[in-house]
């Protein structure tokens, strides 16, 4: 009797569990569906449609008459890209901009995080100040830089000519290449590209700073303490104890920053409008779409961008996965 009762309740328990799982599953799908619908309608479908557009010859003026799906499909947009020197140049600039922008941001962010790691008076304020470049609106910060770097009334050029003895103001954001003379050696430098890279490193180092600092503060102090007792110097501790523990968070930031910088439009558009050797793929797409109203070509460049990013990320992940396995 008692055994039967137990068996019965176990059965009921299993059945209750099964209905509960079903109920949870239904509730889960219901709750997640609004998010899914927004992402589907505003992201997934547009991407697929952009893919279709990239195989059509469509200009904005024809929009009203044209059947947007039934048009003729052709490879013309892609063929034209590969023979377009402006496109290849912009692709190269995009890669340089995102690699060095990412490295610059991480280097600055790492140094900043190490500096404010241990406590001192006013640390909270300093930490807040370090986040300013990232939280302030991009339109405002690009314009501050434009004014600061302006050849006529810019602070940097005023200091440069009055204090540092420059011969003439440097048009940082409109000069494609300049020369700097160091110890008698003349060196050609891409002025405007370096200026936008400096901006990018400044603008996004707080992102790296924030994540590295969070990781630093979550680190157990005992290994470091043990190393210090054993006579390790600060640089040895950094190299052999702190840096290895930061590797994973730095790798994550590198991926995220690379993606964001690769895709970035605002910074270059607002600083130079793509002039003076700073045209990246995103600003090129914008001018193809608005100034030339060539929807097909702009979609082709955008698809190329997405594909290139996917390939770069896959290579990176494979490289890192293999490194992990070797360790």
């Amino acid at each position: 009797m008692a055994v039967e009762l137990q068996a019965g309740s176990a059965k009921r328990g299993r059945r209750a569990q099964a209905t509960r799982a079903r109920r949870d599953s239904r509730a889960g799908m219901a709750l997640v569906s609004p998010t899914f619908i927004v992402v589907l309608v505003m992201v997934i479908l547009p991407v697929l449609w952009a893919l279709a557009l990239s195989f059509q010859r469509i200009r904005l003026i024809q929009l009203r008459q044209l059947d947007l799906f039934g048009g003729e499909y052709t490879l013309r947009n892609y063929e034209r890209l590969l023979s377009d020197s402006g496109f290849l140049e912009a692709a190269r600039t995009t890669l340089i901009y995102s690699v060095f922008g990412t490295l610059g941001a991480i280097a600055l962010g790492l140094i900043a995080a190490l500096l404010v790691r241990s406590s001192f008076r006013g640390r909270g304020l300093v930490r807040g100040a370090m986040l300013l470049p990232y939280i302030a609106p991009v339109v405002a910060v690009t314009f501050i830089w434009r004014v600061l770097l302006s050849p006529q009334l810019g602070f940097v050029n005023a200091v440069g000519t009055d204090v540092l003895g420059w011969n003439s103001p440097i048009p940082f954001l409109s000069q494609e290449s300049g020369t700097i003379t160091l110890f008698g050696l003349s060196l050609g430098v891409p002025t405007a590209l370096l200026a936008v890279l400096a901006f990018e490193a400044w603008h996004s180092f707080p992102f790296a700073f924030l994540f590295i600092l969070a990781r630093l503060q979550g680190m157990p102090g005992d290994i470091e303490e043990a190393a210090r007792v054993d006579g390790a110097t600060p640089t040895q501790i950094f190299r052999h104890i702190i840096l290895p523990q930061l590797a994973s968070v730095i790798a994550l930031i590198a991926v995220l920053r690379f993606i964001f910088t690769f895709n970035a439009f605002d910074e270059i558009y607002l600083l130079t409008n793509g002039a003076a050797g700073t045209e990246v793929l995103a600003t090129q797409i914008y001018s193809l779409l608005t100034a030339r109203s060539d929807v097909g070509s702009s979609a082709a460049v955008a698809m190329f961008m997405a594909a290139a990013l996917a390939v770069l990320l896959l290579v990176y992940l494979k490289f890192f996965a293999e490194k992990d396995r070797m360790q």
Partner: protein
Amino acid sequence: MTPSRSRWSRYAIETRALRLLRPLGIAFFLLITVFPFYYMILLSMRDLSAVIESPGSIVVGLSEISTDAYARVLRPTDDGGEGFVRLLFNSLGLAVGTVIVTLAVSILGAYAVARLQFFGRRPIGFLFLSVYLFPPILLAIPLFVAFSRLGLRGELPVLVIVYVAQTLPISVYMLRNYFETVPVSLEEAAEVDGATRLQIIRKVSLPLAVPAIAATGLFVFMIAWNEFLFALLFLVEERSNWTVSLGVSQLQTIETPATTLMAGSVILTVPIIVLFLFAERLMTEGLTRGAEKG
């Protein structure tokens, strides 16, 4: 003490060098982060002729302070100004609308992904974040074409939907991280008492998640307020619907003096900085939660 720690050992030299370099480094970072903003405010209050005369001066006498640039930026357009009061309301409405819709949608989505076993739960979490893999300009092309064709391109509610799509994934991500830290036992207790799933969310999970929801909402507000590309593409022909970001970017013509440009930038930046001053901890902790463990 180990013998290597004499006055000139590597340890002593490094320690002393760092003791000197650290304040210098902090000063350098303070200079590069704070000075540009100080310069912006300074320029916005100076007279243009004074700026042209001495661009290198970084102090302004009390008698020299002028609010002309602000007056010009804020005056309505039919009064010869730039009409920024209206733009402030546009930006505010757009950002608040985005926050409300994004939070309403993402609270449900984040709860589901954090708590409920359902078909496709794992791939969906990944799918949402992969939104950020696509360049915004790629999404802008089809959306631009579609809304142009529907004749809705210059409308602010359309832009709210675009912003919601851009902020949903990070919002779901931040809230999900939080919901995962709320002990399941609390919800189970409510379930035993006979509460339904929606009641549990409303009465148990939401009150506990208020700080996380506030942090996420502020973050979404900031993204919407600062956004530029979509505002430029969708609104530029519709002046009465401009956001402050777009308005400042359009100030930049030959005849606009730098002082006006900076006054516009100050008006654009101040709300974000004020918001941030009040909620810095809340926002940064919400974003980096989970990063501590590497």
